[in-house]
């Protein structure tokens, strides 16, 4: 009798275990992370994503590194297709574009793609977190340390950041400011652009434009703005550390967290692409105090919803 009971008990436990496992196996979401290269910023995104996935019962099946090489993408895509995750997080433009071309059944979420609009990442299975910050949020952050100002200068290559400038121009005009634009097509024109622009502006807005921002040109831009006591405003804290006055950007880890939180939402949608591209939900204001001192600014940040980082 006892043995018989034991047998039933074991059977029931095994059945429950099986059923629980089956339920659990059915309920857990899986994800694969693919990053374009081994960058600190990308690694922070991965870390944020991993941490949040744990909290949200999302299993990260694999983390791949393209190591900057497109050729590797083919092999990795084959592996991803075999693994069949619920979603793939593509970090960086190389990963995003490789996946866009090769995968259309698995939802793809990208992040850390600078000026994503350039790469037409608009397939039904693709959504993402924008690297760009809404201009209104940027202006709030900049005005919190500068106060109001009228003329915001910008140097840009229309083929790279023309869309950003076009959107920003209207919004800036709506808040009563003036966007003073200067188009260039080569990084050699930065010097001339600065000369033409510097007397007409109250602050210079540095876009993530690879024609404008190079290793050589950034030094020139920084020096010129400092000499003319013009605040240099950016979209990456890297430039603030390098001497720009301020930037409004997202913390890389927060982007990973935000991505993990979006997984469930995305998977519930009939098509992930219908979510569109979302802005980062956590922003931080970075300020270089040395530069502020040179510019004679008294820092009185009153923007409470922004995390503030002071450098150096």
């Amino acid at each position, binding site marked *: 009798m006892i043995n018989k009971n034991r047998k039933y008990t074991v059977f029931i436990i095994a059945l429950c275990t099986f059923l629980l496992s089956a339920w659990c196996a059915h309920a857990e979401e899986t994800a694969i992370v693919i990053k374009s*290269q081994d*960058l*600190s910023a990308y690694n922070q995104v991965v870390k944020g994503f991993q941490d949040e996935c744990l909290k949200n019962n999302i299993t990260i099946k694999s983390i791949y590194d393209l190591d900057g090489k497109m050729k590797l993408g083919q092999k990795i895509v084959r592996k991803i297709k075999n693994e069949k995750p619920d979603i793939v997080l593509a970090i960086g433009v*190389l990963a995003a574009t490789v996946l866009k071309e090769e995968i259309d059944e698995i939802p793809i979420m990208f992040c850390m793609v600078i000026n994503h609009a350039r790469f037409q990442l608009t397939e039904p299975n693709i959504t993402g977190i924008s690297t760009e910050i809404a201009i209104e949020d940027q202006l709030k952050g900049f005005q919190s340390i500068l106060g109001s100002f009228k003329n915001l200068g910008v140097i840009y290559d229309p083929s790279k950041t023309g869309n950003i400038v076009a959107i920003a121009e209207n919004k800036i005009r709506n808040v009563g400011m003036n966007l003073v634009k200067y188009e260039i097509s080569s990084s050699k024109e930065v010097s001339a652009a600065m000369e033409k622009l510097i007397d007409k502006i109250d602050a210079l807005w540095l876009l993530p434009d*690879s024609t404008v*921002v190079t290793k050589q040109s950034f030094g020139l831009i920084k020096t010129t703005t400092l000499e003319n006591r013009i605040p240099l405003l950016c979209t*990456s804290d890297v430039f603030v550390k390098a001497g720009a006055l301020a930037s409004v950007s997202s913390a890389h880890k927060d982007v990973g967290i935000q991505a993990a939180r979006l997984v469930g939402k995305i998977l519930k949608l009939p098509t992930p692409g219908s979510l569109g591209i979302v802005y980062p939900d956590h922003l931080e204001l970075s300020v270089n105090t040395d530069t502020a001192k040179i510019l004679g600014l008294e820092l009185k940040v009153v923007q409470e919803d922004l995390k503030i980082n002071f450098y150096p």
Partner: protein
Amino acid sequence: MIKIGIRFKFIFFTSLLIATIGLASSWFFSTQTRSQLEEELKKRGYSLIAQLAQDGEVKDSMTVAQKAFFEEPITRLRNLDIERELAYWRVLLTQDNILLEEKEKWIKTEIDKIPVHKNIEGITTPVFNVFTTDNGEQFYNFVVPIHEKRTIAEEEFAAHFFGLEEDSDQNEEKLLGIIQIGLTPERINKKMQVILWTRSIPLGFIIVLVGICVSYFIASGVVKPVKLLVKITDKVASGDLSQKVEINSKDEIGLLASQFNQMTKNLKQLIDEKEGVMDELKNVNRELSLINNELVQKNEQLNEAQEQLVRTEKLAAVGTLASGVSHELRNPLSAIKNAVFLLKRKLSRKAMPDIDGKTIQFLDIMDNEIDRCSKIINDLLGFTRVSKPTRFSSDINVVVNEALSRVVIAKNIKLTKILQPNLPMIMIDANQIDQVLINLVENACQAMVDGGELKISSRVSESFMEIEISDSGCGIPEKEVKKIFDPLFTTKPRGTGIGLAVCHGIMQKHNGAIKVKSQEGIGTKMFIRLPLEDKDAGSV
């Protein structure tokens, strides 16, 4: 000295200028062409080395340091070198590790003589330089660094944008090595030679030739009218002011010709006016000369009249004095003469002891001197008593002969008479004229102490009867000629200075004249001029 004409100068300097411009143009054209070709060569070099640098196989070959893998990339590179300008290529993995170095066979310079680029670690962008090897070959050297490509450009920018401070080892691209290639400008040199001989030199030659021709025609066009102007100017300069330059062009030469014609015309007018004024001046001058002559004549006449007047006054004064003195001396002299005569007779009758021959001699002297004094007194009286001539119609030749008959002429004096026959009769006081003639003949004879020739001639001269008495005597000093008719002036040691003054007085009373021409040492000519018709004398 060779004269260089304006045509030659114009052609020479214009040709020189055009030749200079031609040469400069050719030089500029050649330099520009060469510069352009060199620039093209540079572009081809950069293009070739860029192709090589971007060749994935090259990077792979450098990564595994496999020389053999370069065969295909180099073949592709040589195929791209259509112009056959690629001279050498070299691949360096490190400064001392040359993976590959080769050259084209037709390059004379050995590959090891071509300098290896230094400091390959310092190259970040393509490097270009030109060098010439020891054997004179020139190469355009291109060097480019080859980096291992890590990722796409956008990811590179992302790395830059998001920061690399924690992964700085990835920031620097790994340098695989450098590629060095050389291009030879031989083709450019040959092309330049072709351009030089087929374009630049012929073009320069044509420019110079055309320039000379053009300058020749221009010079001819300019010089021809100028030469015409010079020719006309010469004629005008020689006095032919009727010349006119026939140039009708509307340019500066035409204007010059027009101005020249106007100038000639004005000059002619001025010269005509000047000649007119000169003629008038000549006439005025002639009239002034005549007036001057008249004035001189009048002045002479005045002087003569003045002298006459002075002489007459002198004569009157002397006459008055002589009359008084003669009158007062005449009687005492007569008494003295009588006394001497009586004394001499008494002494001749009775010899006296104290009286010797000398006393008689002294008495003779006294007697002679008394006679002489009497003569002087008589002369003075005669002088003062020259009365108004009593005129009768007379033959002057007869008067002359009579006067000559009354004068004792020394034997050593040759008398020549040239008396014009059939002279008209004139109304004269024959005695007075005879006195004048005697006086003059005596004077002439006295002037020829050592002999000579005495000429007497008579003739009619204009409205006068003229008698000329000339001698070959000692003549009268010039300064004394004017004084000889003054009373009491004499050049003779025993003269009284009365004779010629009396003659002058007689001639005046006959409305005639007495004149003298004398040269010291040669002789003297005396002229007596008597009017053929004398109003005071009435008709003959």
